[in-house]
């Protein structure tokens, strides 16, 4: 067996260290080493978006980044989305409008949607649909996901 690498990284504002094998992905490290299981694996090939996280402000599929590459980076996951007892408006709207059915795709979609609203606070339905085209959901038919994102956007704009 090849040797392991030592990685120091920041996740949701906290500094973590882990050991990883060279072929392991950031997704493996988050889930298996740090036990942050909110980030999900649906395919491990970057096709479903369930493992979406932010790395130094860039949205990525954590299954497509090697765990060693996270050294010195700042990572944001679903576990850091709510602030104390305060849910993010996206999380609240997904709850109230039933934007989450089984819930397996929800963490990835919430991370992606938050980034969309950061870049574009007033997206059209089509813009939301294209932004989220990398996040598969099999339960909802996307309708209530799109409505939840649009409602959160409106609320965040104070409209």
């Amino acid at each position, binding site marked *: 067996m090849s040797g392991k690498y030592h990685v120091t990284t920041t996740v949701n504002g906290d500094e973590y260290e882990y050991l990883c094998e060279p072929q392991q992905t950031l997704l493996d490290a988050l889930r298996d080493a740090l036990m942050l299981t909110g980030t999900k694996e649906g395919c491990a090939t970057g096709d479903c978006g369930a493992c979406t996280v932010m790395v130094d402000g860039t949205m990525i599929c954590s299954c497509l980044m090697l765990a060693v590459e996270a050294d010195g980076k700042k990572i944001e996951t679903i576990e850091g989305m709510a602030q104390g007892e305060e849910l993010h408006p996206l999380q609240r709207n997904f709850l109230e409008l039933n934007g989450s059915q*089984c819930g397996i795709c929800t963490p990835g979609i919430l991370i992606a949607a938050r980034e969309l609203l950061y870049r574009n606070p007033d997206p059209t339905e089509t813009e939301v649909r294209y932004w989220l085209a990398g996040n598969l959901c*099999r*339960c*909802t038919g996307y309708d209530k996901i799109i409505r939840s994102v649009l409602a959160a956007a409106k609320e965040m704009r104070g409209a």
Partner: protein
Amino acid sequence: MSTILDKSGFNPDKKLKIVGSSPVKHDGIDKVTGRAKFGADLFLPGMLIGKILRSPHPHAIIRSIDTTAAESLPGVKAVVTRADFPELPKGSVAGDMSRNAMAREKALYDGHPVAAVAAISESIAKQALKLIKVDYEALPHVIDPIDAMKPEAPILHDHIRTKGVKDAAEKKTNVVERLELKMGDVEAGFAQADVIVEHEYDTKPMHQGYIEPQGCVATCTEDGQVELWCCTQGPWVFRNRLTEILKIESSKIRVTQSELGGGFGGKTGFYAEPIAVLLARKSKRPVKIVLTRGEVFRGTGPVSGTRSRIKMGVTKDGKITAADAELVFQTGAFTGSMFFNAPQAMFTRYDLKNVKTVSYEVVSNRPKVNSFRAPCVPQVVFGVEGVVNELAQKIGMDPLDLRIKNAATEGYKTIYGETFGPIGFLETLIAAKNCDHYKSPVPKGQGRGVAAGFWFNRGGETTGTLNIATDGSVTIILGTTDVAGSRISISMMAAEELGIPVDKVRAVMADTHALGWNRITAGSRTTYSSGMVIIDSARKAITELCRRAGLIWGVPEEGVVFEDGYCRPASSNVGEFPPLSIAEIAGKTTLTLGAIAGHSEMNVTGAGPGFGVHIVDVDVDQELGRVDIKRYTVVEDAGKAIHRLQVEGQYQGGAVQGIGWALNEEYVYGEDGRLQNPSFLDYRMPVASDVPMIDTEIVEVPNPRHPYGLRGVGEVPVTPTMAAIANAIGAVIGVRPRSLPMSPPKILKLIEEARAAR
């Protein structure tokens, strides 16, 4: 004594406070914060990682398996093969299940498990798989079910003789069964018809496509007690199967269900679980197996592909006189497709007297198929609803009017023997005809299609408990799996019965030690069946609350009534007592008779049939053959929508799964018999930008067998989708597609053929 099954207490005039609203589901917060624990999310101390070696051959004798090198690799703690599974008779249900979980005499499809290892890390487990030497003798294979029916086809199983055919005893075959179902006289019926339409249809296997791959963790003690954590639609069914195929007594197996990351029928299937249990038994360590997406596609249940020939006749004034069908279902390498649903359901919704169907189930070298919403029905409705639209077109009638004219109503005796009680097909058709979508003109250049569908809806054995805590709040223990919001819906019904806010109720899904037998969560039975059991439990608890109030007041329990969450004296003759709340009574259990609870187990009957109508507008790119869904409306009878947003979600999700099945999804095999598209990229399910908003209209024709009138809603929404889209495409290009998926190359070919014919 009458039970809730005889006397539901349904009262259409009752004013409901909670049922029919849309409170935030209690399990939702865990799903939007990443806390919810799915199959892959359990970690136990000392846990090993299990990996499965799969056959690269679609059909091969397994001469020998040498695991010596894998076993001696440092870090490997257990290796299992067919030798670790008890020998069970070929062709028995348990024998097939065992052979599907782990190949025995032969590998029967690309992806069939042949061995598995458990090691201290995933990388070691993968390395160990490479060290296992399997000596295969490759055999000719057959993928297509029509080819598999031919006399010269390679035979998968020596034991199969076609059921339902005379003189089949000696002949080895891939045709598992021939099933004929008929009523009336089809020849006489067709003789009355002015117009007859007959076509052949072809549908492809699609995958249920749940985003969560199957994941499980198994442990086994030295004295043989097993714990299994897994994502499943049926913990009790999984336990029974472990008992049957591993010969472990049920009381020594505890199956705990995780949150379910999508199932749609696919997680009724049993795959890595027995392997994880055997690896845990050998290693005496917890073993986790999580399938890769490639393994999910290659090794877990897709849906049956079909070939069908459908013939229907109609009079000039729009009376359908006869229907005749011949259906072939591919079931994969093992029987169990539930193909018998198709002839029972395909025409059921029309008031037909003369029907004949002949259906075949055929094995071939593909993964064993598994359930998917309305198992085996959408595939054949695709053809039926195409023929119905063509009949309407040929006699110059509106397609919904033809359906209205022929709609089955209360009292209709179905081909499977049931006589319909109050049903809502006619109301659903009328609602569709009156909805804004159907009344709006078809936008220029687009085509509109409609289609209708039916599902029986199911009940079955169900067990549950309702406990009242000493502060008056309520907990519910359910034996069914929450596949899409049943915990909140059932909590709402309990709160309605008890007259308390739904926030005072919490429901959990039990493990198999906590309750008696529960049938699998499937067939749109859960909110109905577990709802019945929990309402029954609530009513038992109410009886008990009245008894306790009687004890507190010193009056007989008959002198106490329960209304809106309070026990009150039944009349002034009983005495003057201030009403007692549930909390006040439950807080005095020390003075009375201990805890207050209700428990119920029953074989739930009376599920009301469901009907739906889909309307779709499409745009067809005449140069590329690409179909765009522009507008979509689902109209469906829910009986009573308990949680409206959840019901809408079922309609919308079902429709979009159907859109994928209609336009993109299929299993593609190479000549080598290997699956060529086992990834999301190459399989291509609908993404958010592929579809529009899905409008919904909830029709409510109550099912009086249920206290609130509900019908199951999960299966119907996928039954008419492909037909509705085909009809819409036909309206644009002038010829109705009859082969799924209706992908750009096929549509382009139809456009070119239509041009050439002009």
